[in-house]
Protein backbone atom coordinates (compact mmCIF):
# COMPACT_ATOMS: atom_id res chain seq x y z
CA UNK A 1 0.00 0.00 0.00
CA UNK A 2 1.09 3.53 -0.64
CA UNK A 3 1.17 5.68 2.41
CA UNK A 4 -2.01 7.52 3.41
CA UNK A 5 -3.57 9.35 6.31
CA UNK A 6 -6.74 8.06 7.93
CA UNK A 7 -9.50 9.86 9.76
CA UNK A 8 -12.45 8.36 11.62
CA UNK A 9 -15.18 11.00 11.78
CA UNK A 10 -18.17 10.41 14.01
CA UNK A 11 -20.73 12.27 11.91
CA UNK A 12 -21.65 12.51 8.25
CA UNK A 13 -20.89 16.25 8.19
CA UNK A 14 -17.39 15.67 9.50
CA UNK A 15 -16.86 12.94 6.91
CA UNK A 16 -17.98 15.21 4.07
CA UNK A 17 -15.63 17.92 5.29
CA UNK A 18 -12.75 15.45 5.43
CA UNK A 19 -13.53 14.25 1.91
CA UNK A 20 -12.88 17.74 0.54
CA UNK A 21 -9.14 17.12 0.94
CA UNK A 22 -7.38 16.43 -2.34
CA UNK A 23 -7.46 12.73 -3.28
CA UNK A 24 -9.45 11.84 -0.19
CA UNK A 25 -11.52 8.67 -0.48
CA UNK A 26 -14.18 7.10 1.74
CA UNK A 27 -13.40 3.77 3.39
CA UNK A 28 -16.29 1.61 4.50
CA UNK A 29 -15.74 -2.09 5.24
CA UNK A 30 -12.59 -2.12 3.12
CA UNK A 31 -13.14 -5.60 1.70
CA UNK A 32 -12.53 -4.34 -1.83
CA UNK A 33 -10.67 -1.11 -1.21
CA UNK A 34 -7.92 -2.61 0.95
CA UNK A 35 -7.00 -5.32 -1.60
CA UNK A 36 -7.08 -2.57 -4.24
CA UNK A 37 -4.69 -0.46 -2.15
CA UNK A 38 -2.42 -3.46 -1.65
CA UNK A 39 -2.21 -3.85 -5.42
CA UNK A 40 -1.39 -0.15 -5.65
CA UNK A 41 -4.30 0.38 -7.97
CA UNK A 42 -5.45 3.34 -5.89
CA UNK A 43 -3.52 6.04 -4.12
CA UNK A 44 -5.68 8.15 -1.84
CA UNK A 45 -3.99 10.80 0.28
CA UNK A 46 -6.58 10.44 3.01
CA UNK A 47 -8.96 7.62 3.80
CA UNK A 48 -12.11 8.80 5.51
CA UNK A 49 -13.46 5.88 7.51
CA UNK A 50 -17.24 5.76 7.57
CA UNK A 51 -17.52 2.96 10.11
CA UNK A 52 -17.76 5.27 13.11
CA UNK A 53 -20.84 7.07 11.79
CA UNK A 54 -23.85 5.73 13.63
CA UNK A 55 -26.42 7.34 11.32
CA UNK A 56 -25.17 5.25 8.38
CA UNK A 57 -26.05 1.95 10.03
CA UNK A 58 -29.25 0.03 10.46
CA UNK A 59 -32.39 -1.19 8.73
CA UNK A 60 -35.83 0.36 9.04
CA UNK A 61 -39.15 -0.39 7.43
CA UNK A 62 -40.84 2.44 5.59
CA UNK A 63 -44.03 2.18 3.52
CA UNK A 64 -43.54 -1.02 1.54
CA UNK A 65 -39.78 -0.68 1.40
CA UNK A 66 -36.69 -1.25 3.49
CA UNK A 67 -34.40 1.65 4.21
CA UNK A 68 -30.88 0.35 4.79
CA UNK A 69 -28.01 2.55 5.95
CA UNK A 70 -24.97 2.56 3.68
CA UNK A 71 -22.70 1.39 6.50
CA UNK A 72 -24.80 -1.70 7.24
CA UNK A 73 -22.81 -4.91 6.78
CA UNK A 74 -23.85 -7.81 4.58
CA UNK A 75 -23.99 -9.97 7.69
CA UNK A 76 -26.43 -7.64 9.41
CA UNK A 77 -28.62 -7.44 6.31
CA UNK A 78 -28.62 -11.25 6.01
CA UNK A 79 -29.71 -11.63 9.64
CA UNK A 80 -32.19 -8.79 9.92
CA UNK A 81 -34.12 -9.11 6.66
CA UNK A 82 -34.71 -12.87 6.88
CA UNK A 83 -38.40 -12.33 7.69
CA UNK A 84 -39.11 -9.00 6.01
CA UNK A 85 -37.36 -9.66 2.67
CA UNK A 86 -36.06 -13.24 2.36
CA UNK A 87 -34.77 -12.73 -1.20
CA UNK A 88 -32.48 -9.93 -0.08
CA UNK A 89 -31.44 -11.81 3.06
CA UNK A 90 -30.44 -14.81 0.95
CA UNK A 91 -28.47 -12.58 -1.43
CA UNK A 92 -26.59 -10.83 1.39
CA UNK A 93 -25.94 -14.12 3.20
CA UNK A 94 -24.18 -15.59 0.17
CA UNK A 95 -21.78 -12.73 -0.47
CA UNK A 96 -18.15 -13.81 -0.07
CA UNK A 97 -17.77 -15.62 3.23
CA UNK A 98 -18.69 -14.89 6.86
CA UNK A 99 -15.57 -12.83 7.58
CA UNK A 100 -16.15 -10.65 4.53
CA UNK A 101 -19.83 -10.25 5.44
CA UNK A 102 -18.86 -9.04 8.92
CA UNK A 103 -16.96 -6.08 7.44
CA UNK A 104 -18.26 -5.37 3.93
CA UNK A 105 -21.14 -2.90 3.58
CA UNK A 106 -23.96 -2.32 1.13
CA UNK A 107 -22.93 1.31 0.65
CA UNK A 108 -19.39 0.30 -0.18
CA UNK A 109 -20.57 -2.32 -2.64
CA UNK A 110 -22.89 0.10 -4.42
CA UNK A 111 -20.28 2.87 -4.57
CA UNK A 112 -17.76 0.45 -6.03
CA UNK A 113 -20.22 -1.09 -8.53
CA UNK A 114 -18.19 -4.17 -9.32
CA UNK A 115 -19.74 -5.68 -12.48
CA UNK A 116 -20.25 -8.92 -10.55
CA UNK A 117 -21.53 -7.46 -7.29
CA UNK A 118 -24.79 -8.97 -6.02
CA UNK A 119 -26.74 -5.98 -4.64
CA UNK A 120 -27.01 -4.14 -7.97
CA UNK A 121 -29.11 -7.01 -9.37
CA UNK A 122 -31.58 -6.61 -6.49
CA UNK A 123 -31.58 -2.82 -6.82
CA UNK A 124 -32.40 -3.03 -10.53
CA UNK A 125 -35.04 -5.74 -10.18
CA UNK A 126 -36.88 -3.99 -7.36
CA UNK A 127 -36.52 -0.45 -8.69
CA UNK A 128 -34.52 0.58 -5.65
CA UNK A 129 -33.16 4.01 -4.86
CA UNK A 130 -29.64 4.99 -3.84
CA UNK A 131 -29.67 7.74 -1.24
CA UNK A 132 -26.67 10.05 -0.93
CA UNK A 133 -25.86 13.04 1.23
CA UNK A 134 -27.57 15.37 -1.23
CA UNK A 135 -30.02 13.46 -3.44
CA UNK A 136 -31.84 10.24 -4.26
CA UNK A 137 -30.94 8.35 -7.42
CA UNK A 138 -33.10 5.66 -9.06
CA UNK A 139 -31.21 2.40 -9.68
CA UNK A 140 -31.80 2.70 -13.44
CA UNK A 141 -29.87 6.00 -13.42
CA UNK A 142 -27.32 5.11 -10.76
CA UNK A 143 -25.47 2.20 -12.37
CA UNK A 144 -23.55 3.44 -15.38
CA UNK A 145 -21.18 0.62 -16.29
CA UNK A 146 -18.30 -1.30 -14.76
CA UNK A 147 -17.15 0.49 -11.59
CA UNK A 148 -19.01 3.58 -12.79
CA UNK A 149 -21.92 5.22 -11.01
CA UNK A 150 -23.79 8.51 -10.93
CA UNK A 151 -21.93 9.47 -7.73
CA UNK A 152 -20.14 12.80 -7.78
CA UNK A 153 -16.69 13.30 -6.27
CA UNK A 154 -17.74 14.24 -2.75
CA UNK A 155 -20.93 12.22 -2.57
CA UNK A 156 -21.43 9.40 -0.08
CA UNK A 157 -23.96 6.59 -0.31
CA UNK A 158 -25.77 7.14 2.96
CA UNK A 159 -28.37 4.47 2.34
CA UNK A 160 -30.71 2.69 -0.02
CA UNK A 161 -34.44 2.25 -0.26
CA UNK A 162 -35.48 -1.14 -1.61
CA UNK A 163 -39.16 -1.84 -2.32
CA UNK A 164 -40.16 -5.18 -0.82
CA UNK A 165 -41.68 -7.44 -3.49
CA UNK A 166 -44.48 -9.97 -2.99
CA UNK A 167 -41.94 -12.65 -3.76
CA UNK A 168 -38.38 -12.68 -4.96
CA UNK A 169 -35.35 -14.87 -5.43
CA UNK A 170 -31.68 -14.50 -6.28
CA UNK A 171 -29.78 -17.18 -8.14
CA UNK A 172 -26.08 -16.92 -8.76
CA UNK A 173 -23.76 -19.21 -10.60
CA UNK A 174 -20.71 -18.88 -8.44
CA UNK A 175 -17.14 -18.55 -9.43
CA UNK A 176 -16.09 -21.02 -6.74
CA UNK A 177 -12.93 -19.30 -5.45
CA UNK A 178 -14.23 -15.77 -5.03
CA UNK A 179 -17.92 -16.63 -4.81
CA UNK A 180 -18.70 -13.67 -6.97
CA UNK A 181 -21.39 -14.60 -9.48
CA UNK A 182 -20.31 -15.55 -12.96
CA UNK A 183 -23.93 -14.63 -13.59
CA UNK A 184 -26.42 -13.60 -10.93
CA UNK A 185 -30.13 -12.96 -11.51
CA UNK A 186 -32.52 -11.32 -9.07
CA UNK A 187 -36.21 -11.75 -9.84
CA UNK A 188 -38.74 -9.59 -7.99
CA UNK A 189 -42.49 -9.94 -8.37
CA UNK A 190 -44.71 -7.00 -7.47
CA UNK A 191 -48.41 -6.44 -7.97
CA UNK A 192 -48.59 -5.80 -11.72
CA UNK A 193 -44.85 -5.79 -12.45
CA UNK A 194 -41.89 -8.15 -12.50
CA UNK A 195 -38.26 -7.01 -12.32
CA UNK A 196 -35.27 -9.04 -13.53
CA UNK A 197 -31.81 -7.72 -12.62
CA UNK A 198 -28.73 -9.40 -14.10
CA UNK A 199 -25.22 -9.01 -12.71
CA UNK A 200 -21.84 -10.49 -13.62
CA UNK A 201 -22.75 -11.00 -17.25
CA UNK A 202 -22.43 -7.77 -19.19
CA UNK A 203 -19.50 -5.57 -20.11
CA UNK A 204 -21.88 -2.71 -19.40
CA UNK A 205 -22.40 -3.81 -15.79
CA UNK A 206 -25.71 -4.68 -14.18
CA UNK A 207 -28.83 -4.48 -16.37
CA UNK A 208 -32.52 -5.34 -16.49
CA UNK A 209 -33.59 -8.13 -18.84
CA UNK A 210 -36.67 -6.35 -20.08
CA UNK A 211 -37.92 -9.08 -22.46
CA UNK A 212 -38.01 -11.51 -19.57
CA UNK A 213 -39.71 -8.92 -17.34
CA UNK A 214 -42.44 -8.52 -19.94
CA UNK A 215 -42.98 -12.25 -20.42
CA UNK A 216 -43.03 -12.87 -16.67
CA UNK A 217 -45.40 -9.96 -16.12
CA UNK A 218 -48.22 -11.89 -17.75
CA UNK A 219 -47.11 -15.41 -16.83
CA UNK A 220 -44.87 -15.74 -13.77
CA UNK A 221 -43.62 -19.25 -14.47
CA UNK A 222 -40.31 -20.68 -15.71
CA UNK A 223 -42.24 -21.94 -18.77
CA UNK A 224 -42.90 -18.36 -19.82
CA UNK A 225 -39.18 -18.14 -20.62
CA UNK A 226 -38.99 -21.55 -22.28
CA UNK A 227 -38.15 -20.27 -25.76
CA UNK A 228 -36.31 -17.17 -24.67
CA UNK A 229 -32.56 -16.71 -24.77
CA UNK A 230 -30.36 -13.73 -24.14
CA UNK A 231 -27.99 -12.61 -26.92
CA UNK A 232 -24.26 -12.97 -26.27
CA UNK A 233 -23.48 -9.50 -27.68
CA UNK A 234 -21.78 -7.35 -25.08
CA UNK A 235 -21.45 -10.14 -22.52
CA UNK A 236 -18.14 -10.63 -20.68
CA UNK A 237 -15.67 -13.19 -22.02
CA UNK A 238 -12.79 -14.12 -19.75
CA UNK A 239 -10.95 -17.13 -18.35
CA UNK A 240 -14.02 -18.05 -16.28
CA UNK A 241 -16.44 -18.26 -19.19
CA UNK A 242 -17.23 -17.07 -22.68
CA UNK A 243 -19.85 -14.49 -23.62
CA UNK A 244 -22.03 -17.29 -25.03
CA UNK A 245 -21.75 -19.25 -21.79
CA UNK A 246 -22.72 -16.25 -19.71
CA UNK A 247 -25.63 -15.47 -22.04
CA UNK A 248 -26.85 -19.04 -21.63
CA UNK A 249 -26.54 -18.79 -17.86
CA UNK A 250 -28.73 -15.66 -17.79
CA UNK A 251 -31.74 -17.62 -19.04
CA UNK A 252 -30.96 -20.62 -16.83
CA UNK A 253 -30.55 -18.53 -13.68
CA UNK A 254 -33.66 -16.48 -14.45
CA UNK A 255 -35.79 -19.62 -14.82
CA UNK A 256 -34.38 -21.02 -11.58
CA UNK A 257 -35.08 -17.77 -9.76
CA UNK A 258 -38.66 -17.69 -11.02
CA UNK A 259 -39.18 -21.31 -10.00
CA UNK A 260 -37.83 -20.58 -6.53
CA UNK A 261 -39.87 -17.37 -6.16
CA UNK A 262 -43.16 -18.84 -7.34
Amino acid at each position, binding site marked *: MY*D*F*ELTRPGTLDEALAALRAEDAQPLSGGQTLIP*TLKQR*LAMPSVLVSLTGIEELRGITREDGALRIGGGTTHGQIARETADSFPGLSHLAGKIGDPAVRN*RGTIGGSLANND*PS*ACYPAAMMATGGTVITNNREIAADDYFQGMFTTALEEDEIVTGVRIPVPQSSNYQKFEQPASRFPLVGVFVARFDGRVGVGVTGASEGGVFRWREAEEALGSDFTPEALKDMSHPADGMISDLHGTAEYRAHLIAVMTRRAVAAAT
Partner: protein
Amino acid sequence: MSKRPPDLRRPGVSRRGFLQGSSVVAGSLGLAAGEVRAAAAEPTSDTRNIEIKINGKTRNMSVEPRTTLVEALRDTLGMTGTKIGCNQGQCGACTVLLNGSRVNSCLTLAVMAEGGEVVTVEGLADPSGDLHPMQSAFARNDAFQCGYCTPGQILSAIACIDEGHAGNEAEIREYMSGNLCRCGAYPNIVAAIVQVRDSQQG
Protein backbone atom coordinates in the same frame (compact mmCIF):
# COMPACT_ATOMS: atom_id res chain seq x y z
CA MET B 1 4.90 11.21 -2.24
CA SER B 2 7.02 12.33 -5.19
CA LYS B 3 7.72 8.74 -6.13
CA ARG B 4 4.07 8.12 -6.88
CA PRO B 5 3.43 7.65 -10.57
CA PRO B 6 1.14 10.45 -11.72
CA ASP B 7 -1.27 8.17 -13.56
CA LEU B 8 -2.39 6.69 -10.25
CA ARG B 9 -3.40 9.96 -8.67
CA ARG B 10 -7.06 9.51 -9.53
CA PRO B 11 -7.88 6.15 -8.04
CA GLY B 12 -11.24 5.50 -9.62
CA VAL B 13 -10.27 6.59 -13.10
CA SER B 14 -6.94 4.85 -13.19
CA ARG B 15 -8.34 1.63 -11.81
CA ARG B 16 -11.10 1.61 -14.34
CA GLY B 17 -8.63 2.23 -17.14
CA PHE B 18 -6.42 -0.55 -15.91
CA LEU B 19 -9.34 -2.90 -15.63
CA GLN B 20 -10.77 -2.20 -19.03
CA GLY B 21 -7.35 -2.29 -20.65
CA SER B 22 -6.36 -5.64 -19.27
CA SER B 23 -9.72 -7.36 -18.85
CA VAL B 24 -8.76 -8.12 -15.29
CA VAL B 25 -11.49 -7.26 -12.84
CA ALA B 26 -10.30 -6.73 -9.32
CA GLY B 27 -12.63 -8.23 -6.79
CA SER B 28 -14.95 -10.35 -8.83
CA LEU B 29 -12.39 -11.99 -11.02
CA GLY B 30 -9.35 -11.92 -8.78
CA LEU B 31 -6.36 -9.64 -8.53
CA ALA B 32 -3.04 -10.12 -10.20
CA ALA B 33 -0.08 -10.87 -7.95
CA GLY B 34 1.21 -7.55 -6.73
CA GLU B 35 3.89 -5.73 -4.84
CA VAL B 36 2.18 -6.11 -1.53
CA ARG B 37 5.29 -6.18 0.60
CA ALA B 38 7.28 -3.49 -1.14
CA ALA B 39 5.51 -0.66 0.65
CA ALA B 40 7.12 -1.42 3.98
CA ALA B 41 10.58 -0.25 2.91
CA GLU B 42 9.50 3.23 1.81
CA PRO B 43 9.62 6.39 3.86
CA THR B 44 6.38 6.75 5.70
CA SER B 45 4.14 9.37 7.16
CA ASP B 46 3.26 9.64 10.79
CA THR B 47 2.71 6.63 12.91
CA ARG B 48 0.05 6.79 15.54
CA ASN B 49 -0.35 5.21 18.91
CA ILE B 50 -3.33 2.95 19.32
CA GLU B 51 -4.68 0.73 22.04
CA ILE B 52 -6.27 -2.64 21.32
CA LYS B 53 -7.31 -5.27 23.83
CA ILE B 54 -5.74 -8.47 22.59
CA ASN B 55 -6.59 -11.76 24.25
CA GLY B 56 -7.81 -9.87 27.29
CA LYS B 57 -4.72 -7.68 27.69
CA THR B 58 -4.59 -4.03 26.69
CA ARG B 59 -1.76 -3.52 24.24
CA ASN B 60 -0.40 -0.18 23.08
CA MET B 61 1.39 0.01 19.79
CA SER B 62 2.63 2.50 17.27
CA VAL B 63 1.46 1.81 13.71
CA GLU B 64 1.12 3.57 10.39
CA PRO B 65 -2.40 4.08 9.07
CA ARG B 66 -1.71 1.51 6.34
CA THR B 67 -0.58 -1.20 8.78
CA THR B 68 -3.04 -4.06 8.68
CA LEU B 69 -4.18 -5.76 11.84
CA VAL B 70 -2.30 -8.95 10.98
CA GLU B 71 0.90 -6.96 10.39
CA ALA B 72 0.45 -5.23 13.73
CA LEU B 73 -0.05 -8.58 15.44
CA ARG B 74 2.88 -10.32 13.79
CA ASP B 75 5.42 -7.60 13.14
CA THR B 76 4.70 -5.02 15.83
CA LEU B 77 3.71 -7.33 18.68
CA GLY B 78 5.55 -10.49 17.62
CA MET B 79 2.40 -12.59 17.88
CA THR B 80 3.00 -14.89 14.95
CA GLY B 81 0.19 -17.34 15.64
CA THR B 82 -2.02 -15.49 13.14
CA LYS B 83 -0.87 -16.36 9.63
CA ILE B 84 -0.76 -14.45 6.36
CA GLY B 85 -1.83 -16.62 3.45
CA CYS B 86 -3.11 -14.80 0.39
CA ASN B 87 -3.12 -11.37 2.05
CA GLN B 88 -6.18 -10.55 -0.07
CA GLY B 89 -9.03 -11.77 2.08
CA GLN B 90 -9.67 -14.97 0.17
CA CYS B 91 -7.97 -17.74 2.16
CA GLY B 92 -8.94 -17.00 5.78
CA ALA B 93 -5.55 -17.93 7.29
CA CYS B 94 -5.51 -14.55 9.08
CA THR B 95 -8.96 -14.95 10.66
CA VAL B 96 -9.24 -13.42 14.14
CA LEU B 97 -12.21 -12.39 16.24
CA LEU B 98 -12.72 -8.62 16.37
CA ASN B 99 -15.33 -7.57 18.92
CA GLY B 100 -16.64 -11.12 18.82
CA SER B 101 -16.98 -11.38 15.02
CA ARG B 102 -14.60 -13.23 12.73
CA VAL B 103 -12.76 -10.96 10.31
CA ASN B 104 -9.87 -11.24 7.91
CA SER B 105 -7.13 -9.39 9.78
CA CYS B 106 -5.31 -8.79 6.48
CA LEU B 107 -8.27 -6.70 5.27
CA THR B 108 -8.63 -4.75 8.51
CA LEU B 109 -6.40 -1.77 9.20
CA ALA B 110 -4.95 -1.87 12.69
CA VAL B 111 -6.19 1.67 13.34
CA MET B 112 -9.73 0.47 12.56
CA ALA B 113 -9.46 -1.95 15.46
CA GLU B 114 -8.51 0.84 17.87
CA GLY B 115 -10.42 0.49 21.12
CA GLY B 116 -11.66 -2.94 20.08
CA GLU B 117 -11.13 -6.43 21.40
CA VAL B 118 -9.23 -9.00 19.40
CA VAL B 119 -8.92 -12.73 20.03
CA THR B 120 -6.14 -14.65 18.31
CA VAL B 121 -5.12 -18.28 18.50
CA GLU B 122 -2.65 -17.37 21.27
CA GLY B 123 -5.58 -16.40 23.47
CA LEU B 124 -7.54 -19.65 23.27
CA ALA B 125 -5.81 -21.97 25.71
CA ASP B 126 -6.51 -21.26 29.36
CA PRO B 127 -3.67 -19.85 31.50
CA SER B 128 -2.77 -23.30 32.87
CA GLY B 129 -2.02 -24.41 29.33
CA ASP B 130 -5.10 -26.53 28.73
CA LEU B 131 -6.12 -26.23 25.12
CA HIS B 132 -9.42 -24.74 24.04
CA PRO B 133 -11.89 -27.53 23.19
CA MET B 134 -11.67 -26.59 19.51
CA GLN B 135 -7.89 -26.87 19.57
CA SER B 136 -8.15 -30.31 21.22
CA ALA B 137 -10.76 -31.40 18.71
CA PHE B 138 -8.57 -30.35 15.79
CA ALA B 139 -5.70 -32.41 17.24
CA ARG B 140 -7.90 -35.42 17.99
CA ASN B 141 -9.46 -35.40 14.53
CA ASP B 142 -6.26 -34.77 12.54
CA ALA B 143 -7.93 -31.64 11.22
CA PHE B 144 -4.73 -30.40 9.60
CA GLN B 145 -1.60 -31.54 7.86
CA CYS B 146 0.79 -28.64 7.39
CA GLY B 147 -1.04 -26.52 9.93
CA TYR B 148 -0.67 -23.17 8.20
CA CYS B 149 -4.39 -22.50 7.89
CA THR B 150 -5.13 -23.99 11.32
CA PRO B 151 -5.13 -20.86 13.52
CA GLY B 152 -7.62 -19.22 11.15
CA GLN B 153 -9.66 -22.41 10.86
CA ILE B 154 -9.91 -22.72 14.64
CA LEU B 155 -10.99 -19.10 15.20
CA SER B 156 -13.50 -19.41 12.38
CA ALA B 157 -14.76 -22.74 13.72
CA ILE B 158 -15.38 -21.24 17.16
CA ALA B 159 -17.33 -18.38 15.56
CA CYS B 160 -19.23 -20.82 13.35
CA ILE B 161 -20.64 -22.57 16.42
CA ASP B 162 -21.21 -19.31 18.34
CA GLU B 163 -23.19 -17.89 15.42
CA GLY B 164 -25.41 -20.97 15.38
CA HIS B 165 -24.28 -22.09 11.93
CA ALA B 166 -23.09 -25.58 12.84
CA GLY B 167 -26.46 -27.30 12.52
CA ASN B 168 -25.34 -29.95 10.06
CA GLU B 169 -22.37 -30.80 7.89
CA ALA B 170 -23.57 -28.83 4.88
CA GLU B 171 -24.16 -25.73 6.99
CA ILE B 172 -20.73 -26.07 8.58
CA ARG B 173 -19.10 -26.33 5.17
CA GLU B 174 -20.99 -23.28 3.92
CA TYR B 175 -20.11 -21.19 6.96
CA MET B 176 -16.48 -22.35 6.95
CA SER B 177 -16.14 -21.55 3.24
CA GLY B 178 -13.94 -18.54 3.92
CA ASN B 179 -11.15 -20.73 5.30
CA LEU B 180 -9.23 -22.63 2.67
CA CYS B 181 -7.03 -25.66 3.39
CA ARG B 182 -4.61 -26.62 0.66
CA CYS B 183 -3.95 -29.95 2.39
CA GLY B 184 -7.61 -30.79 2.00
CA ALA B 185 -8.31 -31.59 5.64
CA TYR B 186 -11.92 -30.46 5.27
CA PRO B 187 -13.64 -33.71 6.35
CA ASN B 188 -11.60 -33.74 9.55
CA ILE B 189 -12.18 -30.04 10.19
CA VAL B 190 -15.92 -30.63 9.90
CA ALA B 191 -15.63 -33.64 12.21
CA ALA B 192 -13.80 -31.52 14.81
CA ILE B 193 -16.50 -28.86 14.69
CA VAL B 194 -19.28 -31.43 15.00
CA GLN B 195 -17.52 -32.93 18.01
CA VAL B 196 -17.19 -29.58 19.79
CA ARG B 197 -20.76 -28.63 18.92
CA ASP B 198 -22.07 -31.90 20.35
CA SER B 199 -19.98 -31.63 23.50
CA GLN B 200 -21.28 -28.10 24.09
CA GLN B 201 -24.86 -29.22 23.64
CA GLY B 202 -24.33 -32.19 25.92
